[in-house]
C-alpha cells in the first residue's frame, strides 16, 4: 500500500506516467495467482494435445517433444509477464480525478475526472471470489474510457467504489 512497492524502472520515463510524488496504490498479489490459474487451465488443453500426440504412432516422437519444449518456454514467459503486468498497475485518487496506470509493453495512463464518471461497477467472478479479489470499472459517456482496476481486496474495492460514486455524484456535470 505504500509508494515504495511501486516498481521503478527507467525512472525519468515512468515519472511521466506515474508521478513519484503521488501515493500510488498497487493491486493485490492475489490477482497474479488468479491469472496464473487461468493460464494453467488453458494449458491443460495443450498438455492433453501433446500427450495424445505421443501415443499416436503415425506422429514422430520428436514432434510432441518439440511442441512441449516450446509450450513450456511460452508458459514460463507468460507466468513471468503476468507477475510484472499485475505489479505494473497502480491507481491514485486525487482531489478531482482518478488516475490509473498499467502495462509494461504498452504503458498506459488514464485520467478520469470524478465529475465525468457515470457508473462505477464492482465485479467479481467465481475464481475472483474464491481468491478474494474484485474489479472496479469506471464508465464515462465515452465508450473508449478504459479505466478498470482489477484485483483489489473486496473491502478495499467496495470502499473505492463508494468513494468514487459519492465524488461522482457531488461533481456530476456535463453530458
Amino acid at each position, binding site marked *: 500500500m505504500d509508494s515504495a512497492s511501486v516498481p521503478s524502472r527507467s525512472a525519468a520515463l515512468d515519472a511521466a506516467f506515474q508521478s513519484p510524488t503521488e501515493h500510488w496504490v498497487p493491486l493485490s498479489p492475489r490477482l497474479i495467482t488468479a491469472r496464473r490459474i487461468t493460464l494453467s487451465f488453458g494449458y491443460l488443453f495443450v498438455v492433453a494435445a501433446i500427450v495424445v500426440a505421443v501415443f499416436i504412432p503415425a506422429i514422430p516422437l520428436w514432434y510432441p517433444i518439440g511442441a512441449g519444449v516450446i509450450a513450456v518456454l511460452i508458459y514460463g514467459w507468460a507466468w513471468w509477464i503476468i507477475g510484472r503486468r499485475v505489479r505494473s498497475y497502480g491507481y491514485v485518487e486525487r482531489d478531482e480525478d482518478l488516475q490509473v496506470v498499467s502495462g509494461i509493453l*504498452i504503458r*498506459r495512463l488514464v*485520467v478520469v475526472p470524478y465529475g465525468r464518471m457515470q457508473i462505477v461497477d464492482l465485479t467479481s467472478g467465481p475464481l475472483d471470489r474464491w481468491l478474494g479479489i474484485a474489479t472496479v470499472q469506471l464508465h464515462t459517456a465515452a465508450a*473508449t*474510457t478504459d*479505466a478498470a482496476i482489477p484485483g483489489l481486496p473486496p473491502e478495499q474495492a467496495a470502499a473505492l467504489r463508494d468513494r468514487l460514486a459519492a465524488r461522482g455524484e457531488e461533481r456530476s456535470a456535463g453530458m
Partner: protein
Amino acid sequence: MLAEGNASLHSLATVPQRTHPFTPLLTAVRVIPPLYIGVLVVGVDFSSRVPLPGFLIAGFIAIAAALVVAAISAVAWWRLTYYFDADGDLRVNSGLLQRQVRRLQLSRLQSVDAVAPLIPRLFGFVELRVEVAGSGDSRVVLRFLRRDEATKLQEEILSRHAQQESVASADEVGPALAPLATGDLLATVPTGRLLISLLLRTSTVALFIFTALFVAMTVAFQGWAALVLALITGGVPLFAIVREFLTYSDFTVTRSRQGLRLRSGLLQTQSRTVPAGRVQAAEFIAPLLWRRFDWVRVQLTVAGTQSEGSEVGRTVLLPVAPRAQAMSVLAEVMPGLNLDDIAWVCAPPGARWRAPVQWKFLAFAETAKYIVTRSGRITRRMAFASHDRVQSVGMSEGLWQRRLGLASVEFHIAPGPINITSWHMDLAQARPLVNREIACMLLAARAV
C-alpha cells in the same frame, strides 16, 4: 417567468392521436413493387402449369400479399396512439399483440427527423422519427403523417424540448441557440461539386485505377479472371458513389431556433436537426485529391443518434464544402472556434521512425474552449472537441515509442466516428498536455 408561463401552457396533456388513416394503404402499396419483382424472379415457371401469363400471376400474388400486409398494418395503425402527457413528454402506445407503452423524455431529445420515402412522398406523406438519448430502444417512428401535420408535430416536440431544457436550467441555453432567426440558409452543396468530390476520393480513385489495370490486363493477355476482379473493383466504388450521391444530393444546412437543420436526399428526403448542445466532436476530412480545391467533408459525433444504416453518433454536417465555408458552418455548433491564430504543436522529428508517412502532419493545438488534433498525410483529418465534452484523457506509450521518447494522448469522447488522438508526441510535451486538458475539463464543468 416567460418560460414558466409557457411551461404551464404546454404541460397540459393532449388527447391520444393516431397517424394518418391512409397509413395501412401506403404501407401496403410500398411492398407491392419489391414483392412483385420477388415473385417474378422466384416463380418463373408458373406459366407451365397455369394458363395465365406469369406477370399477371405475380401481380395477383403481390396484391394478395399486400392485402395481408394492409390488414396487419391496419391493426398496428389502430393500436398506435401518441400524445403528450402531463409532464410534457411524448407517449407512444403501440404493439400488435403485446401492448407497448413508451415514454420519450423530451428533455433528453436528440433529434426529430421527417423522412419521406419515395411512394409516400408522391402522396405528400412523411414519417417522423423521434429520438431521445439513452441506450437501447430510444427512438420512435410515427408513420405516416401529412407533411404539414408532421411539421406541426415536429415544431411542438422541439418547442416542448426547448422549454424543458430552459426549465431544467434557466441559464443553460447557449448563446448559439437563443437569439437566432429561424430558417437562415447557411450552406448548400452544388450537385456538380458533390459528384466531383465523390469521384475524387482516394479510395474511389485507387479502385478505379485498379479497374483500369485489370481491364488492360484482360485486353493484353486474353484472360477473363481479371475482368471479374475489374467488376468488383469498379462496382464497389460505383455503388458507393451512387449511394452517397442519392443520400447527399440537394444538401442544405439551415439555422433554426433548435439548432442546425440538415436536409438532403434525391429519392428519399432526410432532414435532421442537430442541436448545438448535443455535438460532441467534429472532424474535417480532406482526401488527397480534394486539396487542390481546398474542400473538406465535415462530420460530427452527436450524442445518442443512430440513423439507419450508419454508425452510432455519425452525422455528416457537410458532405463537401470549401474549408472557409465549412469553418463558418462548424462555428454555429462550436462557437468561438477559430483556426487562424491557433498554435500547433507538432510531433518531434523522432516521430518519423514511428510514422514515416504522416509524422510531419501530426499535431495538436489547444484553445480556451477546444482541443484540436490533426493527422494523416494522404487523407488529412482535423478533429475538434470542446473541453467540456471530453470525458477522460489517456496517454499510452508502446515499446518502439518509448525508444524514441514518444507518447500518444487520447481524448475520450462519446461513441461516434471521430477519434481525437494526438499521435506520437514528444513525451515531455505529452504529460503536460494531459494535465492541462484535465484542468480545462474541470474548468469547463464548473462554468456550466
